[in-house]
């Protein structure tokens, strides 16, 4: 978790906001550091987290989390984190001998038999719904790393949007928790389905963090530009600006944010 970023967003570990959908986006750059931020932030805040990772393996996220001072393995053992590793599950679905189990597999859609994301949603719901005995975790959180991968796997954009909608109903409204989803997209992209997805998600989300590479190309000291759009209710609006733009530099264990053109290298 990057303290600077949570300060910019006005989040605090003691009292995380509830019922919000946060959209993370990336244009021509890699914004995975945002995912790592939110994962470690919510784990530190004591929320119950369900992390659906399509892009990378568990060990990758675990090692990065260790750099940020968190052990995902222990969080998993304590029952705080439910981790679905897409790469592994997809492989298992394809190469397993087909045993017809009663409940649909969360990754059944990858086999291309026309099934939708209902299995995945059921997985999220059971993972996040409070246990019968009652556990001590704060609000539940769903984190999805890169919804755009679903499109590559042959899921229709409307199905992805349905999935997000159902997750919002379950997580945001019923369980009073948060959802963080990530997409990629750019203005000059020819991937129309992905653009549709990104646009629809921008419309729904209450907070958008969009990272872009610099328009002028690669720079050693400024890795990109982060636009934060907070859609707050009207009484809060007076306090804060709606849209903030910062530039960032990714360091080994931290990301530093600064106002545009205020990089240490420039000054």
């Amino acid at each position, binding site marked *: 978790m990057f303290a600077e970023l949570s300060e910019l967003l006005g989040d605090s570990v003691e009292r995380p906001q509830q019922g919000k959908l946060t959209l993370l986006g990336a244009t021509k750059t*890699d914004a*995975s*550091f945002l995912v*790592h931020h939110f994962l470690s932030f919510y784990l530190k805040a004591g929320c119950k987290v369900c992390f659906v990772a399509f892009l990378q*393996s568990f*060990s*990758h996220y675990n*090692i*990065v989390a260790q*750099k940020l001072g968190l052990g995902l393995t222990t969080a998993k053992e304590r029952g705080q984190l439910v981790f679905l590793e*897409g*790469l*592994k599950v*997809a*492989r298992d679905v*394809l*190469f397993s001998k*087909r045993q017809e189990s009663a409940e649909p597999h969360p990754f059944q859609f*990858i*086999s*291309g*038999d026309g099934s939708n994301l209902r299995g995945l949603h059921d997985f999220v719901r059971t993972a996040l719904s409070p246990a019968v005995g009652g556990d001590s975790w704060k609000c539940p959180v769903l984190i999805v790393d890169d919804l*755009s*991968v679903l*499109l*590559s*796997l*042959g899921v229709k954009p409307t199905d992805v949007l349905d999935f997000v909608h159902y997750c919002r109903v379950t997580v945001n409204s019923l369980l009073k928790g948060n959802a963080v989803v990530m997409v*990629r997209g750019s203005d000059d*992209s*020819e*991937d*129309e*389905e*992905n653009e549709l997805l990104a646009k629809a998600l921008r419309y729904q989300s209450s907070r958008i963090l969009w990272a872009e590479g610099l328009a002028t*190309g*690669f720079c*050693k000291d400024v890795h990109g530009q982060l636009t934060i759009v907070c859609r707050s209710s009207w009484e809060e609006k007076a306090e804060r600006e709606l849209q903030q733009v910062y530039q960032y530099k*990714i*360091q*080994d264990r931290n*990301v530093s944010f600064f106002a545009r053109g205020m990089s240490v290298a420039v000054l």
Partner: protein
Amino acid sequence: MAALATGELTPSERVPTSFQRKVPGGGGSRLAILPGTRPSVRHGQLLLSSGLPSLDCVLGGGLAVGTLLLIEEDTYGIYSSLLFKHFLAEGIVCGHNLFIASAKEEPADILKELPSPFLNTSVSAMEEEEAAMKGKQESMKIAWRYQNIQTLEVTQNTSSKFGHYFDLSKPLASELIQNIGCHGFFLSEETALCPDMNSCNMASGYSRLLHSIQKVIYQEGFDGSIPQKAQRNILRIGIQSLGSVLWGDDICCNENPQNIHSLTRFLYVLRGLLRTSLSACIITIPSHLIQNKAIMERVTNLSDTVVGLESFIGSERETNPLYKDYHGLIHIRQIPRLNSFNCNVSDMKDLAFRLRRKLFVIERLHLPPDLSDTVSRTSKQDLAESTKLLSSGCSAMAIGKKHLDF
């Protein structure tokens, strides 16, 4: 006394002293003993050489085990196939196992065309072979030794070195190839067999290839998740011209192909397979033939390292004196972020490749040196004059005419 004894012991049995050095591969990780690999300083992952030390350097030290290198082919596929062969040849020299998949050529034929390594290690000696006559005796001895010794010995001798230079003019010795575990996948041969093929709505060629790779990984013990006692090795997977028409895919002929998702789905599952196994994969893909650019964007996102080649053959740059030292440009499109949220991007962005008489190298692109007036080289003078013409603009029309008037 104790220090002498430690030389014979395996690292794990080493006598604990207060002055122990942290040796890579000495402590916890058993993987680092694998030939032809070295652990990355940055993210702790094992690295393999791509077969071109200059490319390794650009990619941050090499390819990590369990990742995918995607090569976007140049227009005629000449230089991409060179990269492909270097990757496989490096595997043979290091004693790795190979898996070669192609729809165009027989894997056995590809093996025959692999370049042979320069076994004398210094690059400068290799560049000026004639000058390095005094070292000839030793290098001859080394070469002679390699021919007679068992392959195991060869791998141990060469494994200390990471990344070799290859001589394109000589084919790899067939004795080296014979001792390597090699699996071939030739699509038109495979079409006869294979049972349930519609398991995943992909073009059938991809599905067959996946099952074949999965079988090799699990049966030959490259699976990283199952602990094994036996000697482990690296599997190098090479897939040639993936996505071309020969694979039974229509993304090259149609803007809205029937199975638009089959290539991306294949890549996703392949990546899942690679991540948990001791293997690395190189794929060449004819990206300029793929009609729907959205597919290429998705393919890039699903692979780890992406390198694009752009050759000058047939383009006007071929005759441009500015590029006369090079055969094409190389674009590093993507470098993976492994075990960190920070990737090591090199400062060099303008890279070019060049095919010398024997050697394929990637260099930093630079303009030819500016020649002084005393040097008389015709092409340079022409160039200089034409730039003078350009800069003088409209007022110099009369002078310009003089040049055009013949």
